[in-house]
């Protein structure tokens, strides 16, 4: 790209690449990578294993200069993707960076898709200042439903398609991030009160459900730890009490914790805890231990849903 266009670009450029086949995927990504390498910019590609293979063979030896990560691992829980970009940036202070990230592919569960879309929208405030990065997010227009492409146009300020790169007229900022509705929870699942003196009981209820769901020992320990932390958050910050419900749905064990509190920091669940001992770590930990975490904050209180695939 020309120097003048480069000078005009904002410190964080978040662009959706709408591709319809292998050729348009490679056309959009390979030149983006090569331009970055030519400018001496570190490039991180978080992609599906298949697309990493395509890029490697197309780039040839130049691939050795590119950092690759399997999005199916890094972003299995999409709330771990922003911390991965931040870590990449933190290791290269002051450098202009490029990234390619494809968090949504055909086969993501409906709940994962919702959280991937939330992740895409959160990238804008997450990198609003402090990091000079150009992030390109490929979307497979053939493999994904039209509604997903429409949402990509709303969460990305810039769109690259057959007619080149342009501002998205549908870009929505600020997005509705915390108060989006969640699917109804089944009415027959019993409600357990959360109290300071009964956390042991709560862990027993979660352990029993996780065991019935067939989770392996380490994953049982993980979901119990996460549920206990979120429940403790309710006791400490959510009005001193809360309720827990759990159920199985579409191959997932879901633990839902509600309380009367409110989340006020958009990235509350994806900011890596620093060295401050007193800083809250519960929601960060939940995202590291669970397959998916949904957090919402409504005028009447907060809802956290922890998902474990089973």
């Amino acid at each position, binding site marked *: 790209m020309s120097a003048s266009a480069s000078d005009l670009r904002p410190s964080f450029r978040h662009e959706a690449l709408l591709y319809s086949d292998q050729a348009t995927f490679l056309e959009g990504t390979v030149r983006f990578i090569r331009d970055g390498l030519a400018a001496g910019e570190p490039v991180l590609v978080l992609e599906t294993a298949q697309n990493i293979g395509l890029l490697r063979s197309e780039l040839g030896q130049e691939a050795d200069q590119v950092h690759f990560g399997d999005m199916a691992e890094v972003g299995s829980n999409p709330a771990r993707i922003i911390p991965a970009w931040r870590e990449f940036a933190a290791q290269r202070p002051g450098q202009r960076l490029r990234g390619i990230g494809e968090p949504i592919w055909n086969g993501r569960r409906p709940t994962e898709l919702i959280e991937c879309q939330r992740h895409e929208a959160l990238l804008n405030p997450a990198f609003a200042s402090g990091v000079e990065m150009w992030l390109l997010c490929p979307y497979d227009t053939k493999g994904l439903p039209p509604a997903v492409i429409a949402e990509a146009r709303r969460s990305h300020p810039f769109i690259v398609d057959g007619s080149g790169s342009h501002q998205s007229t549908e870009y929505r900022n600020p997005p509705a991030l915390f108060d989006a509705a969640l699917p109804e929870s089944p009415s027959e699942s019993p409600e357990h009160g959360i109290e300071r003196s009964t956390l*042991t009981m709560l862990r027993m209820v979660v352990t029993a459900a996780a065991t019935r769901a067939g989770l392996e020992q*380490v994953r049982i320990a*993980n979901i*119990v*730890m996460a549920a*206990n932390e979120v429940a*403790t958050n309710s006791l400490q910050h959510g009005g001193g009490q809360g309720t827990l419900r759990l159920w199985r749905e579409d191959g997932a064990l879901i633990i839902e914790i509600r309380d009367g509190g409110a989340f006020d920091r958009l990235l509350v669940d994806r900011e890596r805890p*620093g060295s401050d001992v007193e800083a809250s770590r519960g929601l960060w*930990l939940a995202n590291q231990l669970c397959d998916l975490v949904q957090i919402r904050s409504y005028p009447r209180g907060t809802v956290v849903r922890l998902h474990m695939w089973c």
Partner: protein
Amino acid sequence: MRRPYLGDRADAVATVVSGERHNDTVYVDKQLAVKRTTSPNGLTFAGAIDYFNVAAVAQSLTLAVNGGGDLHLDLSRLEFCDVSGIRALVRVAETMNGQGRLLLHGLPVGLQNAMTAVGWSDLPSLVICNGGSQEQ
């Protein structure tokens, strides 16, 4: 709000439970027992640490490090420890700064995973000793 404190409560329970003096019992409640060990100098924890009793755990640790030197914690019978419990360990380890270390023995795998995930597994004054039983 009712809080489990050290002192009268620990003494009372130790007396009631055993009918005799148990000088090694530092704290006990419905889900946790903390006992003092002398060789090596430290504490054993059996049961669960959570928001219910973490204040008492923190106080037990603070009293135990007052003597100075290394403090060995046998956690092999700790069934559960939440982030606030880990925080209590980290806080004590930080106060020992230079005058001794906090050595964790028999750390359950789940707890070790959590410590790594929240970035508390590599403090200089906090030593994770793998291998289960407490070294003598």
